[in-house]
Every structure is written in structure tokens, then in C-alpha cells.
């Protein structure tokens, strides 16, 4: 059989961000993958050392759009740890609400794209239409459909009055039956979806451990490592939810984890809205940030986001570093793509819910 090298990318591999793959193929099958990254490396970490602590809330939110809430939230947590700031309980609930709204919208986008790649355009449109409920939620509550500017050091920058709480519950009542009764069953049973995603892009649990994988990719292979449960932050310890896992480690399993997590997120949102305590949603003033260092981690839609901050007592970080879940997931594509059909590559790439803006910073 002839062996070829095929360049894929850097543009238009199932998404609108650039990544270059050089594939060694044996006939229809992928023998080896080499990834070349760096097309959108912007030096944002360096920029953060030239901005003050408050300017960096805005900057970190612009690392990526889909997990734009996770970046400033985790960053704020490092600052708060160094300064010994106790975030008001109401603000912690509001942070969870912002986090879960973003998670639902992000996961729905990913499973919609899966349907698009499979060629099931009516399902793609159906999921994207349902996702508009959460996009409208973001626009109504936060004033923006992607960068919601919810977080600040010591709390949040948005409020929910009784009318908005009631409206949000109404939106969840609209969305939940569509997810549970229509969308999830289609992904679970439809032959078009199953034939293209079952047994495709497989990665085993042990490989997930070796590559340090996190998020729905790891959980699709049975590796239960949700930071909301492992290292609870904000008020996750007081909320009732299941960590969703599957065992087959294929494209389908990763999609089913995301669909399961959408349902869990809706449950978390309902609990937060019902329990939302009275009190301040942020601390007054701008506290001085002393010299120190801290590590914080949260569960972004794609998995664990880690931030490290070192300060020297000035108004700017001495060093700010972060690592997103896609960072390891990219590297593991070599395992998932091995022996895959060339036609399945877009599906496999999409199944890690890749974020290049996050990865390269």
C-alpha cells in the first residue's frame, strides 16, 4: 500500500482557528500525526505583566471567547488568595451561575458542530437554535453574548434581582425539555450520528492519565477528574450534581459527556437561583495586593484551567501563567488519530472541543 504525507490546515479543520497537522497516511488510514502550533500565539502572558491587576481581568477574558468566563474567574481567585480576600457568599453563587451558563452554551456549540461535520444539518440547526436561549440569557443578564465581564477581584460585577431570577428559571424551563427530550436522545440513538462517532478517535483511560488529560475528553474515557468535585471552589461543595462519565473513549462518548453535563449544569443553575443568598456581590474599594504567589484551578467547559500568579507588592503581576485543557488534549490527538480514517479527522479534532486561542495565548 502507498504511503503519503498529507498536510491538513492550518485553516478550516472543523473550526475557524488555525492549526497545522502533517499526517502520514497508509491508504485511508492515519499512521502518524505531527502538530505544528503557534499561528495565533499572541504573547498575552507577557502583556499581563504590563497591565495592573484590574486591567488583567479584562485582558484574561479575551484569551478565548467560549471559556471567557473561566479565565478571569481563575485569575481573580489567584489574586484573592494572595491578598487574603474572602469573596462574599452571594458573589460565589453568582460566579457559579455565570460559570454554568457559559458551560451550557459552550457544550451546545460543540455538539452542534459535531452534527454539522456528520452532515446532519437539521440537527445542527436545531441545537444552535436551542443554544440561542442561553445566548439570550447572556445578552440579557450580562449585556454580551460571549465576553460577559462577570468577575472582579473580590466578587462579581453583575446582579440578579427577583425578576431576573424568575426570568432565568423560565429560560431553563424552556431549554431543559429540548435537551432531555429531543437533543440528547437523538445523539444517543440516531444511526447517522452513531455510525460516524462510535469507535472513532478512541483514547483509553490509561493514555488519558499518561497525557494528563482533563475535562470531557478524560471523562469520556472514564477518568473522573472534575475540579468542581475534586477541589471544590466557590460554592460547588454545597451543590448537588453528578460528574458525568462514559467509558468507551470515542467521539460519541465525549459528546455524550457534554450532553450529560448540560443537564447537570441546568440542575446546578436551578439550585443556585433557588438558594441565592442576600448580601453584597463584591467588596468595596481596590485592595492592595501584597507580594506572594498562588495557584488556582477551576473547571472550564473543556476541563481544568490552572492559573499561577506571582506578585511583588506592585500593582502589576511579576509573573502570570495559565494552562488550559486544550493544551494537553492537542498532544493526545496523536493517540486518537492513530489508524483513524482521513475522513474522520474533523470529527476527532472537534471531539476535543479544541481551543487554539486558549492554548497559544
Amino acid at each position, binding site marked *: 500500500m502507498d504511503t503519503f504525507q498529507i498536510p491538513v490546515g492550518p485553516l478550516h479543520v472543523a473550526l475557524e482557528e488555525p492549526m497545522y497537522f502533517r499526517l502520514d497516511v497508509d491508504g485511508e488510514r492515519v499512521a502518524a500525526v505531527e502538530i505544528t502550533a*503557534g499561528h495565533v500565539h499572541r*504573547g498575552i502572558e507577557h502583556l499581563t505583566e504590563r497591565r495592573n491587576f484590574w486591567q488583567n481581568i479584562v485582558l484574561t477574558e479575551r484569551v478565548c471567547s467560549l471559556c471567557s468566563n473561566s479565565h478571569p474567574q481563575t485569575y481573580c481567585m489567584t489574586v484573592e488568595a494572595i491578598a487574603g480576600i474572602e469573596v462574599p457568599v452571594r458573589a460565589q453563587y453568582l460566579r457559579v451561575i455565570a460559570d454554568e451558563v457559559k458551560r451550557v452554551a459552550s457544550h451546545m456549540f460543540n455538539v452542534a458542530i459535531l452534527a454539522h461535520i456528520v452532515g446532519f444539518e437539521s440537527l445542527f440547526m436545531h441545537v444552535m437554535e436551542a443554544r440561542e436561549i442561553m445566548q439570550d440569557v447572556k445578552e440579557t443578564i450580562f449585556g454580551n453574548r460571549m465576553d460577559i465581564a462577570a468577575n472582579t477581584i473580590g466578587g462579581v460585577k453583575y446582579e440578579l434581582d427577583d425578576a431576573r431570577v424568575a426570568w432565568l428559571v423560565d429560560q431553563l424551563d424552556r431549554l431543559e425539555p429540548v435537551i432531555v427530550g429531543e437533543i440528547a436522545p437523538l445523539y444517543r440513538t440516531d444511526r447517522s450520528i452513531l455510525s460516524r462517532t462510535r469507535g472513532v478517535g478512541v483514547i483509553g483511560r490509561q493514555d488519558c492519565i499518561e*497525557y*494528563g488529560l482533563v475535562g470531557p475528553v478524560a471523562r469520556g474515557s472514564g477518568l473522573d477528574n472534575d475540579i468542581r468535585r*475534586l*477541589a471544590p471552589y466557590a460554592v460547588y461543595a454545597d451543590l448537588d450534581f453528578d460528574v458525568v462519565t462514559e467509558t468507551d473513549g470515542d467521539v460519541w462518548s465525549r459528546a455524550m459527556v457534554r450532553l450529560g453535563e448540560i443537564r447537570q449544569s441546568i440542575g446546578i443553575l436551578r439550585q443556585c437561583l433557588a438558594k441565592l443568598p442576600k448580601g453584597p456581590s463584591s467588596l468595596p474599594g481596590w485592595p492592595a495586593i501584597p507580594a506572594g504567589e498562588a*495557584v488556582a484551578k477551576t473547571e472550564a467547559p473543556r476541563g481544568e484551567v490552572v492559573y499561577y500568579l506571582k506578585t511583588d507588592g506592585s500593582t502589576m503581576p511579576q509573573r502570570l501563567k495559565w494552562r488550559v485543557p486544550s493544551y*494537553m488534549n492537542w498532544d493526545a490527538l496523536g493517540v486518537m488519530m492513530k489508524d483513524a480514517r482521513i475522513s474522520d479527522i474533523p470529527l476527532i479534532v472537534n471531539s476535543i472541543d479544541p481551543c487554539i486561542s486558549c492554548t497559544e495565548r
Partner: protein
Amino acid sequence: MTTPTSNAEILLATTNTLPGTVEAHPEPNGLVTIWVRLADRSTLAAGCRSLKAVGARLSMITAMPDVADPGHFIAYHFDVAGSTVTLTVRVGPGETVETIVPIFRNADWHEREFVELYGIGMTGRMSMRTLFLDEESAGRRRSELIPLSRIANAASTKDLWEQLEAAKEAQ
């Protein structure tokens, strides 16, 4: 002496055996954050193996300049069942640090990134292929590149042309 039972106690017992200074901070959620400054960078691999033995996952590696003296610090951040451990080593000018890829496979991208950004020397790696930056800038330190902030502020035009002119004159 009592036998450690909780994950945090096991982790503390493990990190206390590492050669260096150890600071432990209990967290409100029952977990622990531990900072270990290794006295000698040659003990890094042994430290990583000790952590792997108690189930550590490498979360991230942060390299940063030592602002007091020439050289760099490298901080290796681990997650151990939710707790966080950071091992920090110092690498002086002209010194090298050993790869930990044989212990933690996912260290590969992190090491490639800090080598290309800071020019820190490494030993034991199979390949030194750059991660994000063009091969032509391999091994150069971050401070040698034009900061994006200056470009974004439209302040780079003059600097950029001056550098190009200087390079042309040098040829």
C-alpha cells in the same frame, strides 16, 4: 509517630522527605497547597517520581526570570487528588535542567514552551523542536522579541524599522 491517613497527610509526608524547604497551607475545602523549593535542581526527577508515586498529575510548568540574580526559576505544578503541589528549582546562567518527560509524558509541550521563550538549557530530551515560535527564534529569550504590547499600542513602527535598519547595517 502516627501513620498518615488522609490524602493531604500522605502528600505532606511525601513532600517533607524532599530536599528543600516545604511550606504547607491547608485550604478551607480540606485540601492542601504545598510549596517546595528544591535546594538542588538535580533532585527534581527524584521529587517528581515521589509525587507520581502518590498519584500526582502534572498540571503546568511555569518558568520565570529570577529578578534578584541572573537565572531563572522553574515551578512545576502538580495536582494530587485536588491538592496542589509546586516544586520550584533555580537554573543559573549556563546551567541546564533535566527533562521530566520520562516521568510525566505531558511535560513535553511545557518544556518546549519554556525553552523557546526563555532559552533555558535542558538535558535528556529526544527533540528540542519549538512549540509555538518559528524555528528561527528557537532558543531566544522572551525579552529579545518585540513585546506585543508595543505593537498593539502602535509604538512598534519606529522600533521595528530601527531594528531592521540596524540589522541591515550590521550585515
